[in-house]
């Protein structure tokens, strides 16, 4: 796995906050954005610099949904399972995506092409059921359309 963590880059993120209190979650989110996941070396550096036990850093990192402890694929596929999408047939969309790329929600394909997430409401309920790939929304979906959309990504 590519996890070349540059401690100086982590330090730069931490220094932005000028030793304010309670910044752990904000730092972790920034690191997550930078690397698209949270490599162990990064967590260790954060623990040292913020003087928070590693176990606590790990606990926070494993609690929140926005943080990933495993590397993510090139494309992030998010299928909305909010209530509005659910009543409009979202479970069938998720089923179809899972079969199409052969992984379950929360997993990443072996070739690191796709990561699949189920999310609870993206706030564009008018388009439900909706799937978002790398920020691009595909609305009013039916299972029959899924494969065609996924094929657009390489």
């Amino acid at each position, binding site marked *: 796995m590519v996890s070349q963590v540059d401690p100086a880059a982590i330090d730069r993120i931490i220094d932005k906050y000028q030793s304010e209190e309670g910044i752990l979650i904000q730092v972790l989110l920034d690191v997550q954005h930078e690397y698209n996941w949270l490599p162990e070396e990064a967590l260790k550096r954060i623990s040292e610099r913020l003087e928070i036990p590693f176990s606590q850093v790990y606990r926070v990192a494993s609690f929140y949904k*926005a943080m990933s402890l495993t590397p993510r694929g090139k494309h992030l596929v998010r299928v909305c399972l909010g*209530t509005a999408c659910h009543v409009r047939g979202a479970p069938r969309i998720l089923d179809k995506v899972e079969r199409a790329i052969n992984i379950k929600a929360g997993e990443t394909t072996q070739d690191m092409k796709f990561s699949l997430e189920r999310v609870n409401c993206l706030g564009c309920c*008018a388009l439900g059921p909706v799937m978002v790939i790398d920020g691009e929304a595909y609305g009013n979906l039916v299972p029959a359309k899924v494969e065609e959309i996924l094929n657009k990504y390489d």
Partner: protein
Amino acid sequence: MVRLQSPAELEELRKHMLAKRDTKKPCITICSGTGCRAYASEKVSTAFEEEIKKQGLDNTIDIKTTGCHGFCEKGPLVVILPGEICYVQVKPTDVAQIISQTIGESKILDQLLYTDPVTGEKAVHESEIPFYKNQTRLVFGNNSKIDPTNIDDYIVLGGYSALSKALFEMTPEEIIAEVKDSGLRGRGGGGFPTGRKWEECRHAPGDIKYVIVNADEGDPGAYMDRSLLEGNPHSVLEGLIIGAYTIGSHVGYIYVREEYPLAVENVFIALSQAEKYGFLGTDILGSGFDFSIKVHRGAGAFVSGESSALMTALEGRVGEPRPKYIHTVISGIWDKPSTLNNVETWANVPLIINKGAAWYASIGTEGSKGTKIFSLVGKVNNTGLVEVPMGTSLRDIIYTIGGGIPKGKKFKAVQTGGPSGGCIPESLIDSPVDFEELSALGSMMGSGGMIVMDEDTCMVDTARYFLDFLSDESCGKCTPCREGIDQMLAILTNITEGKGQDGDIELLEEIAEVTKNASLCALGQTAANPVLSTLRYFRDEYEAHILEKRCPAGVCKALISYYIQPDKCQACLICYRNCPVGAITGAKKQIHVIDQNTCIKCGICFDVCPQRFSAVEKISGRPVPPPLPLEARVIKKKKSKGKK
């Protein structure tokens, strides 16, 4: 920008801005809320920019990208001022025509107007569209007039005048009295009286106090807080600053979900602009009051929207709730007195200060004052954000504003209050919506999600869905919530999979009772609501699942089969080609048959079968008829097109 030193300077600035604005100059406003963006509204605004540049009209036409207008169903929305001409579902290819005809020749483009699906009438202005006409948009109305990244737009509409009034004409006690008299209650779910909360926090011992905006809108199906924060962030900031002055707080927090990147971005812009004008920072408007705001991005945990959990998360720890023997207004973040209110609650405050408690209290019902924004979603024609006075009936919201149920289906229930709420059946659709009424019906106000369900929605599956959500989101700290939810979920899953047994319903009720009474925080205390309310109104559906192994709505996969009706099949091969597992046999002029053993019940055949044939049927609770023998599957000529 200059830092304003007094209320007079603010008024001077406002006058100056108003004088500078040419109200006759055409202005194209494009909704850029998240819903419209998903419909590619950004491409529309770029097209406008390019076209205007191309035609050299930079100085004669203004463009404004605004926050969410609320009518998400018809996005991207474009409103052309000063005539307030409203175009719906605008595409980049419409842009040139809008500029040359509507702006150039004052001609209205019929094809872009909203057409009433019932009467067929076209509406030229937003105010004529039934969706808007029947709303009372006190809090949400300015969204469509403001570019959220430009504080001047807010100031022109009277922004920060409530702050100036509060700081210079009112004592904190008077503000508390005003908010109490207004009857404002928390819009985040609990409905606690806001004025009382402020009063307790003001009188709590200690010099350091905090005010917090809860923008961790986690309820699936609710997005009004996001739209307010994205579209009119200063209304929230103004409310928060007034609250801080009242309570005696000098530091505030905005806790906003990381999943709302546009809201985060707009809040940061709003903060820096407010600071430059002197609405934030030291000596606000020359009053001597100091206040600053920090933004904390939430990292995705439903339970962190609970007040004590949110405060723990603000401290940088795992956002779990704690017992509230001592209220957070006494001991909240960093153990200091803290007042937390929801986005919408804060946005109501400037209105109350400006227009007075008596005016505010004249809107709504006995126990619930003012308006409430609902997100009307699910199986409803006009999906969007709806603001109505408290006490408006569900029927008015769903039918008059929402335009009823699509595709001529029958209304079944409306789910309010998010995962902690409940489902209200058709027989109660004339109930007025306020805090008390919804609780009495076994649901709750929650943050204002309103998910409409039609006859194709299975209520057992709905309850299972919410429990699944809650099981995932329960932090696991207390046993009744962690175990209670999991056990209820297991029973519900069994029922939807056709493994329900006699006694399951009673067991569900028993577990629900314990979970409700013994859980630590509101998540667990209300987790049983989806189960109890569906049991209360739709017990027969549970019984059909358990006793007859039948899903009346045809949703639960294990209880349905897809079947091609031989008399309707025209052997068009569409389902045959689309079946992902090759379960369909058939050929040209040969009636298709689904092999039930291979079928994975994905429903694709059901979706793709042309509507004029509608040959694929969902069967539940009775055996699938055996396939016709091969020789009987030949479609003879001309038999086709029709029914006898």
